[in-house]
């Protein structure tokens, strides 16, 4: 497909379980972003990759959250020992450029809705 895809679309986890969320960005896009969107809120920045380099992880809520993009394309967001407050929609976005212009269009995937019971 031409857009950003994410899988799974829905994930239910028991508290304490580990989860892995996958993002397939648009082919050739340099920049990749992860956001967390709680119910009734706007997306909140989690982390940013430029190719395989994670340049900013300031938004990750705790050390239970880990993201990687080893080959500069597909990215995985892993959450260890999930807690109920981790329940949210996790959005991935990619953009063509390195982000230095400040106006690069970010293309969002449909998100993964994570529910922690």
């Amino acid at each position, binding site marked *: 497909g031409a857009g950003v895809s994410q899988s799974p679309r829905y994930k239910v986890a028991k508290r304490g379980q580990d989860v892995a969320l996958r993002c397939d960005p648009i082919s050739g896009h340099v920049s990749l972003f992860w956001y967390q969107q709680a119910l009734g809120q706007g*997306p909140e920045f989690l982390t940013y990759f430029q190719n395989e380099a994670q340049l900013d992880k300031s938004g990750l809520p705790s050390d239970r959250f880990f993201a990687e993009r080893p080959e500069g394309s597909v990215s995985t967001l892993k959450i260890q020992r999930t807690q109920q407050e981790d329940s949210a929609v996790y959005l991935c976005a990619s953009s063509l450029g390195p982000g230095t212009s400040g106006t690069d269009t970010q293309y969002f995937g449909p998100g993964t809705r994570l529910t922690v019971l």
Partner: protein
Amino acid sequence: TQLLEQSPQFLSIQEGENLTVYCNSSSVFSSLQWYRQEPGEGPVLLVTVVTGGEVKKLKRLTFQFGDARKDSSLHITAAQPGDTGLYLCAGSTNDYKLSFGAGTTVTVRA
């Protein structure tokens, strides 16, 4: 904590009416973007404004960036049911990081 405050939180209007959504902050942004998000989907970019005082028109949508680059508004003329959705503003103060508002849920009744 979200830097951008959007108002109103909810807006329900009849088809054919006009509406305005506001986005305010105490911070100065280098650029500001407006997105629309539908249930089960990611946000889709509508417009980017970069110059204080800038006005952009996209068919029935008019976007304005405040002179001081701290606020913005989105005006929809003659709203249609297809305009229903969550409208999000997002500001950038550096290269890539976007700070989103909480959104305005717009419902246009036929």
